[in-house]
């Protein structure tokens, strides 16, 4: 977002992660200055258009071009607040298949490969985007059902499965919410960090099952996603308390379990999630509190980060309220890596998993 970048006091703003930009758009608390910017932007562009996009084309791609349309298509789906990033990616690839003029499976695969590479390089910071592209490519190249069909039938099946993915994603969230119910018991206190649709779904279902529990929400600086979360929870009638991010250790003794979502689950079984997850997991681990990760299985990514800096850095502007003195560096990274030994269980649509299962699933799929 250009307006935000201008606000950022650091003289040379690093490239802003598109993934976190979308998240901020979908989940952040609408502040007064944001509204002002939005109004200004709306005057210049049709609603929904984003100034910072690499190619600011009109969003709904009614007939996307054969090659270049994938990113526009992706951006179109990405803007929908309910659609996960992975769904957008798969929808975009399904659109590539539909508009493809390939006549053999091989041609189609090459075309898809190009499109998915393009998509992945467009936003290297989004883990679920690359994981979803890989998953879909794997489905196209490997699926056993396609062998017995004619090309057209195979193509339409691929498109159909791709377009069903939105439903799969929603169903995955429902499954996770159901699986998690056993873990939430009456009278417990749950700490959540950031805004996660899956975690919200879990807590929503628990509340509608008349479970009595309390939620502590971290503030989730810098985009204050925790406030949005607490807002939604309070609307459901769940007792919520908001903490500043640095009050986690202070409050941990009253917490019974930690629930976090994940941007991506990596091969070690660790997770990559919003900045601050690692320290929460560390505090929880040292106080013997379970840390549960709610994540859909399509977020499993073939990455193996060895340390925090071992990923494509995803930057995000940080507003300190006051100008940062010149010559002072600002850590703008948006996410951190939580190693598997600090996680208790992963609640996924494949079932309740220990972190070591993740690599197993990935090996089954890709080897």
């Amino acid at each position, binding site marked *: 977002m250009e307006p935000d970048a201008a606000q950022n006091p650091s003289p040379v703003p690093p490239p802003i992660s598109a993934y976190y930009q979308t998240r901020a758009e979908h989940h952040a608390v609408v502040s007064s200055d944001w509204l002002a910017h939005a109004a200004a932007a709306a005057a210049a562009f049709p609603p929904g258009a984003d100034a910072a996009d690499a190619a600011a084309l009109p969003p709904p791609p009614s007939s996307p071009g054969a090659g270049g349309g994938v990113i526009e298509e992706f951006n179109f789906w990405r803007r929908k607040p309910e659609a996960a990033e992975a769904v957008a990616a798969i929808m975009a690839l399904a659109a590539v298949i539909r508009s493809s003029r390939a006549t053999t499976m091989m041609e189609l695969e090459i075309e898809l490969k190009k499109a998915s590479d393009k998509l992945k390089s467009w936003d290297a910071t989004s883990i679920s985007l690359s994981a979803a592209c890989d*998953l*879909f490519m794997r*489905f196209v190249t490997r*699926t*056993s*059902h396609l062998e*017995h*069909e004619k090309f057209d039938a195979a193509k339409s099946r691929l498109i159909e*499965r791709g377009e069903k*993915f939105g439903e*799969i994603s929603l169903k995955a969230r429902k499954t996770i919410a159901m699986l998690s119910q*056993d*873990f939430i*018991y009456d009278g417990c206190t749950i700490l959540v960090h950031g805004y996660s649709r899956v975690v919200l779904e879990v807590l929503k279902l628990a509340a509608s099952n008349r479970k009595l529990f309390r939620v502590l929400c971290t503030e989730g600086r810098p985009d204050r996603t925790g406030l949005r979360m607490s807002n939604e929870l309070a609307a459901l009638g769940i007792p919520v308390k908001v903490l500043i991010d640095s009050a986690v250790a202070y409050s941990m003794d009253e917490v019974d379990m930690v629930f976090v979502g994940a941007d991506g689950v990596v091969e070690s079984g660790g997770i990559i999630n919003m900045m601050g997850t690692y320290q929460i997991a560390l505090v929880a681990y040292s106080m013997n509190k379970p840390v549960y990760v709610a994540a859909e*299985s*399509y977020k*499993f990514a073939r990455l193996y980060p060895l340390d925090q800096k071992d990923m494509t850095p995803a930057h995000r502007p940080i507003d300190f309220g006051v100008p940062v003195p010149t010559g002072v560096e600002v850590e703008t990274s948006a996410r951190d890596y939580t190693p598997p030994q600090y996680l208790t*269980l992963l609640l996924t*649509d*494949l*079932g*309740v*998993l*220990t*972190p*070591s*299962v993740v690599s*197993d*699933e*990935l090996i*089954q*799929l890709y080897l």
Partner: protein
Amino acid sequence: MPDVQPLVSDFVLKLKRRKVEGSHAVARQTAELLRSVVSQHRMGSSANQAAALADAVRAVGEQLIAANPIELAVGNIVRRVLHIIKEEDISSTAVGIEGLSVTVDSDGEYDSEHDDRPALSAAVLAAHARNALRAPSLQTLLEDIPVSPAISRTASSTGDSDGKSKSAGDKSSTRKLKHDVIAAIGDLIDEIDSCYEPISEQAVELIHQNEVILTLGRSRTVKEFLYAAKEKKRSFRVFVAEGAPRYQGHVLAKELVEKGVQTTVITDSAVFAMISRVNMVIVGAHAIMANGGVIAPVGMNMVALAAQRHAVPFVVVAGSHKLCPLYPHNPEVLLNELKSPSDLLDFGEFSDCMNFSTQDGSPLLNVVNPTFDYVPPKLVSLFITDTGGHSPSYMYRLIAEYYSADDLVVRRKATS
């Protein structure tokens, strides 16, 4: 099934009164009961025989689990049987459909559209059948082929020509299904009975010359394990913690001495004092949970902590019937049972303390006698099951092999 109902209620009563205890005995008797349930089950004329059979098993299983939810082996065996039924059903339908598609292919030349359809759906179905048994995985995330349309399509394309022969073949196929299921349950019972052998075969590889082994209480699996090592001419010493309040350790010590194993009995509270001399801790378990945690006789967590403190390997030996596909949500409370205080205290001696007339009427002396401990997976070094040695994080894999994912909750479907 009116004939098995007395058997079922008899067993339920036994479970409720805690007359059957120990996961081995419980597992065995559950399997036997379920075998008779299956054999007494009258195969109706309903379309889905396997589902009806599974429902019957589920109905009985629900009662048994409710009778003693602490004996996790009951649920394990019920789930195993349900899995067996599913497996046999899929293998029989896969064979059946292959047969059908062949007949259509041979006479289906007049209709080109129908020609490739059944062949395709047979292949799809076979692939799906393979998937149905497996737990959901990333691999199958995108490819969910609805099973019922595929079957109905096959049926409709073949229905007219094969209608009669199919109904004739139905009876024999259901009888075959039932027979196969009974045979498979028989195999399961054999497996439960002989689970000690494959476990104790691994003893020589784990117990080395002149080692010191520590164990707590009495477990038959541990006993057989140590016997097997002794028979292979290993000489080693065993410390047996007595396992208060039941003192089963005394029994084990006696049994070991009979076989010529050098044995030392210690009190439970001496575990920390002795652990520095120990090379390996080998214990039995009540149940192994899906995350690799262990439900074990009380006092085990302390032993595990002592072992961890001194970096002594903590090995759990258990047959596969103790593998439970559930996750321990609140194990200290939910998966425990409080026994009679008479194990701890003599009522006669302490009857004065039980005087209810003092103060506000509540007794001053309370006795709590829990049966089990939960040992978290990070304290366990190795599991020895009948399929070999596994690390705690691998247990989910074994569980995925033995149980199907949708049987985790044993509950009757709405229509029964």
